[in-house]
């Protein structure tokens, strides 16, 4: 599958934080997730990838082009939703639509207002009078209305109620269904996004600690619930995370196929069972182990 975004060895230094040697690829037509705890560098990474902030070193190639020579064209083809919406507070959504329409080559005004209607955002209300969630939805409507081939969304579900969050996730799935659009999304929470992300990148302390296909992760990472004493210490030592609890222990393995033979006797006797692990479990394992 074609690569729409390729970042190589990105570095960005702040006084108290550094993005160090981050490399990332995003496949065409996929939904990719960048997850990590607060201050992991997700927002910084997305800003660099969307040409909102300069990088110190490294290279970013988007849709076969680089920002240094094709910034205007690329920004027509890349939709960016920042963590904090950046609209003019004293202006309305309608004003912003007119403003944006002047610059975007493929601005879809009707689509924009249709999205606002779906999101229940009043286009005549000043931005400063919109709620945090509505501002986020306005930002999303803008990014979705200029025919962007790649959407870079920073915490798109933050501040949204459950109805709008579900609606957004469905929309993201729908727009990538035909393979013509790609979504890169960052979040510190995995609620819902783990269901739709096909590729997953974990960022921690400014570094990529894991980059894998979500299916592969879900196949390999599993919880093993077992009775105390049913697994020997050597097997327990292979768990990425081990939790001892009064009513039975559980260990998180990052390679179930390799471990399956070792736990087979306990599984057969009913002293152990295998359960799926969520992205949050895997992320926590990396953060605590780092």
């Amino acid at each position, binding site marked *: 599958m074609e690569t729409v975004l390729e970042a190589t060895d990105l570095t960005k230094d702040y006084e108290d934080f550094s993005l160090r040697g981050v490399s990332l690829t995003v496949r065409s037509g996929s939904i990719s997730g960048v997850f990590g705890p607060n201050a992991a560098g997700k927002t910084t990474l997305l800003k660099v990838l*969307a*040409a*909102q902030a300069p990088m110190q070193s490294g290279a970013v190639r988007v849709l076969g082009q680089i920002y240094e020579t094709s*910034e*205007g*064209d*690329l*920004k*027509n083809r890349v939709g*960016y939703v*920042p963590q904090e919406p*950046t*609209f*003019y*507070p*004293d202006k309305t959504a309608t004003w912003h639509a*007119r*403003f*944006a329409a*002047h*610059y*975007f*080559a493929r601005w879809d005004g009707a689509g924009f207002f249709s999205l606002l209607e779906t999101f229940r955002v009043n286009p005549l209300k000043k931005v400063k009078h919109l709620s945090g969630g509505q501002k986020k939805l306005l930002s999303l409507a*803008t*990014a979705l209305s200029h025919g962007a081939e790649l959407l870079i969304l920073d915490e798109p579900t933050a501040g949204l109620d459950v109805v709008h969050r579900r609606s957004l996730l469905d929309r993201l799935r729908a727009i990538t269904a035909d393979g013509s659009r790609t979504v890169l999304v960052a979040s510190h929470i995995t609620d819902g996004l783990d269901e739709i992300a096909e590729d997953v990148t974990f960022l921690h302390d400014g570094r990529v600690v894991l980059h894998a296909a979500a299916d592969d992760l879900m196949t390999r990472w599993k919880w093993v619930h077992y009775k105390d004493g049913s697994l020997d210490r050597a097997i327990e030592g292979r768990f990425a995370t081990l939790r001892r609890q009064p009513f039975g222990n559980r260990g998180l393995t990052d390679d179930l196929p390799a471990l399956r033979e070792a736990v087979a006797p306990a599984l057969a006797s009913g002293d152990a069972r295998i359960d799926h692990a969520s992205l949050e479990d895997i992320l926590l394992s990396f953060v605590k182990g780092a």
Partner: protein
Amino acid sequence: MDPILRRSSFFYVTAFVTYTGLMGRFMLTRDWPAFEVIPLFLPVWLISGMLASEHDERYAFLRTLPLTDRAVVRTKFALILSFVSAAWLLMTAVALFRMGDGVATPSTLVYVTLVCASALLVGALYQIGIW
């Protein structure tokens, strides 16, 4: 019209109109050497116009549009240059008009030009600082 230009020009035009309205009339009507003091207010008016324009500016929003930083900066500098050029033209015209009654002299033209050039420099540096 470019929306950035349209939005920001409102503040510059307002500053220019108030400057010419308040200060221009002194240059036209007073017998005392008004030209020694009044041009010095030009940088003040320019900076106030810039302050008003930049107060709610959303560069982060502009960066999400298919615009280069260079294009935005060019627009902003064009506004500053236009403001100062218009003020220079106006004050030069008034100075020439007042030469007959001795309020302005040929050296006044040099003085006005120097003040306008300084205002342009101050404005440009201020804009760079904001940027």
